[in-house]
Structures are given as C-alpha cells and as structure tokens.
C-alpha cells in the first residue's frame, strides 16, 4: 500500500563496526531498507540488536563503517561535519529514552536550543518555543526546569524540541522506555497524530511490540545487527 510513496530515507548495505578495545563488535551488518515519506516505521529487536545504531546513523549522529544512507536523495556520508550538523538541526528531530534535556535550562530554553544553533534571534526563539510547547500541551510549564516535570512531560518537551525546526523526519529511540504504560501509550499516540496530521515521517525504536503493532504502518525487526523481518515494507 505504500508503494506509491517515494522514499525519504534509503539505506543500502549499512554496516557499523565498533572497536571496543581489541574486540570488534558488529553493531549493524549489511542493512538495506527504504522508508517511504510520511510513513510511521517501527523498529523492534532485543537490546544490542543494533536498533539505536541504525537510528543514530539515520540521524546523522554517527557514520557507517560501510554502506550508504540517502535522505531526500542526499548522501549523508558525503556531507561535511558542518553540513551534517545542519542536517541534524533542520531535517531531523530526535527523541531519546532518557529525554536528554539540559537540566539547567527551562523547558522553553530546551525547546529553543536547536533554534539557537540555527541562528534564530532570541525573541523569535522564545516565541517559537512557546508555540511548540503549547502544541504538545505544556504551555503552562514553559518556565519549569526538567526536574520539576514528570517523565511524560519531559518527553513531550523533548518532542517539542525535536519539532521546533519543523523537520520532516522524527526519530524516536525507545521514547517510552522510562515511562509507565499509560504515559507510553499517550506518547506513541502523540507521535502517531503528528505522523497523520503533519505527515511527518516517524521512525520509532521500541521493544514494546504491542505499541508498534497498534500504531505503526510498517515494522522491521533487527536481530544481531541484521534485518530479520520486514512487515509491510515495500
């Protein structure tokens, strides 16, 4: 059913090898996949199966040992450090299991952080951060610091931060790992809404297969760094 959609992310022969001292760890082995624009992809797999590594490679935080990733038709591997930084701030938004908010900054300041590096003026930063916080339902908590917020609220602040630059791709690395099941569901539903309403391509890494089955259009399963199963993939 997704065949008609053009791919936004294309990975080919992705391999990542980490050198842990003298031991070489194969984190990802020859993964080839194509993610259609506007889809909601779930990635499952046990810990250490390479889910996060794949997400980091797509997010431009890490570089593959071999293989290529194309986003919007552009090869990430050919980008300079500077271009990669621009890609991270403009084209993708990332959220993490541990939220990764800066504890000394308020919610609004955290949300405005990507805009800071984009060179947006302070006044506009503040305005846009508030707008996005309103959208995630945290307008009243803008001046609170992360530790004054609940886990679900913190993750929503992180989502607001990921969205503030209006990226087309949202990468979520175990976003529900630190949340109770009710809040987890809320967060994934929120991601699903974003995917539907704004046609943002969402890639969700999770080991909660139930959630993925419920919300995702597509799913892949990783096992020992290799693609074990595709579900509904083109």
């Amino acid at each position, binding site marked *: 059913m997704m065949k008609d959609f053009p791919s936004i992310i294309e990975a080919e022969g992705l391999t990542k090898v980490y050198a842990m001292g003298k031991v070489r760890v194969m984190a990802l082995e020859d993964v080839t996949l194509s993610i259609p624009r506007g889809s909601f992809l779930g990635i499952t797999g046990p810990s250490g199966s390479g889910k996060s590594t794949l997400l980091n490679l797509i997010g431009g935080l890490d570089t593959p040992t071999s293989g290529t990733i194309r986003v919007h038709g552009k090869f990430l591997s050919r980008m300079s450090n500077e271009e990669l930084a621009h890609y991270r*701030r403009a084209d993708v938004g990332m959220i993490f299991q541990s939220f990764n908010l800066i504890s000394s900054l308020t919610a609004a300041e955290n949300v405005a952080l990507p805009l800071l590096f984009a060179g947006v003026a302070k006044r506009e930063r503040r305005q846009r951060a508030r707008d996005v916080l309103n959208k995630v339902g945290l307008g009243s908590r803008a001046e609170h610091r992360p530790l004054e917020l609940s886990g679900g609220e913190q993750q929503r602040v992180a989502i607001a931060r990921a969205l503030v630059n209006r990226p087309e791709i949202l990468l979520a690395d175990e976003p529900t790992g630190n949340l109770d099941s009710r809040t987890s569901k809320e967060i994934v539903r929120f991601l699903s809404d974003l995917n539907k309403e704004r046609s943002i391509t969402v890639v969700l890494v999770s080991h909660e297969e139930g959630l993925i089955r419920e919300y995702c259009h597509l799913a892949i399963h990783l096992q020992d760094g290799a693609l074990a199963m595709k579900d509904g993939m083109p």
Partner: protein
Amino acid sequence: MKLIDYIDQSFSNLKRRKLRTALTTFGVVIGIGALVCMIAYGKGIQKNISDSFTQMELFNYISVFTESALSRLGIGGERRIKAQGADSAVFLDDAVLKEIERMRGVEMVFADVRFPAAVRLDENEEFVLIQVLSSELTASPVIKLRSGTPYSSDDENSLVISDSLLTRLGVKDFDSVLGQEISVSTLSFDFSQVDPMDLSSLFQGDRLPFSRDDYRFKIVGIAERMGFGGPALLRSDVFIPPGASEGLKKLPFSNLWDLFQSPGMRRGYSLVNVKLSSPRFVDPVQEEIEKMGFGTFALMDQFEELKRGFLILNGVLAAVGMIAIVVASLGIVNTMVMSILERYAEIGIMKAVGASDKDIKKIFFFEASMIGFLGGVLGLGLGWLVSVLINHVVNAFLAGEGVPFIQFFNFPLWLCLGAVAFAILVSLAAGIYPAVRAARVDPVVALRHD
C-alpha cells in the same frame, strides 16, 4: 549561532558555576594585576626621569671636564678622551669658557663653583657646599622653586635654599622662612696666624690657620628637591649669585681633590657646564670641545643607554608578571576541562540538536575569553589599586626625608588596553585544548543511556 548568543551562552554557563568561575578569574586577576603593576612601575620610573629631564632642559646641557676630573668621576664610554701627559694638559680657565661660548648653539657657559660653608637658622646649623649660580640660571627650569622667587640680580645678598635642607634645619612651614635672614659662615685662610719666618709652624700650633667669617643672606626662594637626586648640574642645597660670592672670603676649592687635579697647581675649573639652545647642538658642540682636549658628558648620550637599561628592567619585571599569568592560564585549562567532563552529556545533546563542532568550539572559546576579559579588567583595577597603595606608602616614607611626591607608576593607554587584550589572548590560548576536546565529544557516546 549569533555573536550575542555566544556571549549570552558563555555568560550563563559561567554563572552556573559561580565559585569556580570566580576562583579561576581571580587567578587571572592576580596574574594581570602583577604584570600591569610591574610594567607600570618600569614605565613610571622611565617617564619620571625623562619627563623631569626634558622639563628641566637637562638634555640641553653638556658638562666639560679636564681629563683628571673625568677619570675621578668615573665617567667613561666612547667619548672618553685619551689620557694625556701633564705637559699637554689643558686647563679649564676663563679663556676656554669664552671660546666655548662662541660656538654655535651655545647659550651660556658657567663653571661649577662650590665652596664649603655652614648655614645657621635659629639654633640649627648644617654644613653644606654652597653652589654659585647666576640669577639667569636660577630663573631657568633647571631649578624648580616651590615658593618664593629667584634672586633678581647677580649681586644681591640673597640665596635660594632647598626644602630638604630646611627640613634638616628644623623648618616645618617652608613659606615662613621666605624673606628671613639666614647666616652663612665660610672658612678662609687666616694669614695673621702665620709666622712668615717659619711656615712650618703653619699646621703645628694648637690652632689651624683658618678663620671663620659670618655673613647674612636673605632667603628669597625655596627649591624643590629633585626626586631622583636631581641633575648633575645642581649638586647643592644652597645657591647664591656670583656677585655675592665674590664678596665672601672663602677657600678657593671645595675639596682637596681639586688641588690634586690641577697639574702644576694651576688654577682652573674642574667642571664647566655648557647650556645649549636646543638638544640638537649636543653632538656638534661636544665634538668641538673634545677637539680642544677636554672630556665631555651629555645626559643625551647617557639617556640612550638608560633607555636600553629600562628595556631590560621592563623585560625582567614583565617576566615576573608572566609567571603569574602562566599559572593563571593553567587554572583556566583546568576549569575548562572540568567543565567539559561535567557537561559531557550536555555537549552531546547540543550536537544532537544541530550544534556543529565549530559551535561547540566557539562556546568554549567564548567562555575562556570571558574569564580572560573579566580577569583582565579586574586585574587592571587591582594593579592600579596596588600601585596607588604602594605609591602612597613609599611617598609617605619619602616625605619624611624631604623628597617631594613622586608618581612611581605610569599607566599609559596602551598598557590598559594591552593588559585586557593580553588577558583575553592568554585565556583563548588556554581554551584551545579544552575547546578542541569539547568539539571532539562523540554524541553517540555522550547520549548512551545504558
């Protein structure tokens, strides 16, 4: 990222760790303070000397010596004349004075005449060498009068006395002695004591063949004591006009050396001062006088050497200050590295949301330079404060010795701006390693949650 954001960012980061920032900055403050103090002191001394020399027109003077006087004074250098035998010895007499006076650029020639005397004011007596100085010179900038006036003619029985001698004479309110009479006693040969038939009795009796004569002089001016020993031209605390000097019975020499110096016991001056209309005549006139067989000394020559000396002095002082700066910069490196370790995850987050390596580097550079800027400005303030303090303490001490207020420190604009710029520069240099290290933080490692 915008410039203002870098400043904002680094400021709030530094504010987060107030104590550590304060301590690190304090290190820079001490370093810059020491450096600034040292350089300001070197500059101050230099300025003091060159300013007062210029102001007193001391660069316009040449001193002329006979060869023997030259060697006695230990003044040498390239201009030192060759040793001459007694036969070819030249004398500084009035004929020579007249000859020098005719040279181009020469304004005035006057011999350095001084004689021993005792001055008494009320109950206090001091022994001094009185210097004969024309009224014209007394009115020139060579003498700095703190009150009163120079004597108006070369013949009046007036004198100018230094404030330090007045202090020694127990005077507290200097102005109160203006117009007052002061007693000057001279020594002269008393020929009535000498038996012309037996000159060997001259120094054998109970009484030396000298007599003491008392004169009254009016104090018209009070000279300021020079902070740096004053010019070589004025080596006395009491100055009287030449006309008045002629009327005094006195010994024809100020010191026994004068007798040794004069070959064949011929009378001549041991030292003559030449005043020029401008420092640019120093070289030609000096050359001409040396051709006549005399030794010369011009402050102008010495000043070049003096400048080299100051350069070395400044260098040594700056080196001492530099040690403090090096220590301070190590403090900056330490603080920044600590900060990176603490903010490891934060750096990872910033990178994940789109900070480039350059952004991270700049954030740390700005933090370092902020420490440098604060340290530089406050250090400058501290240096200035300390210098004011030292100045007051030292001057309070010197005031007791009758020395006028001396500004020991000099803060030229370049030093103030340079100190701050230097502090920033050093901090930036200290920030290189931490900044590079921060930029190298791998976001994947920094954000790993397990």
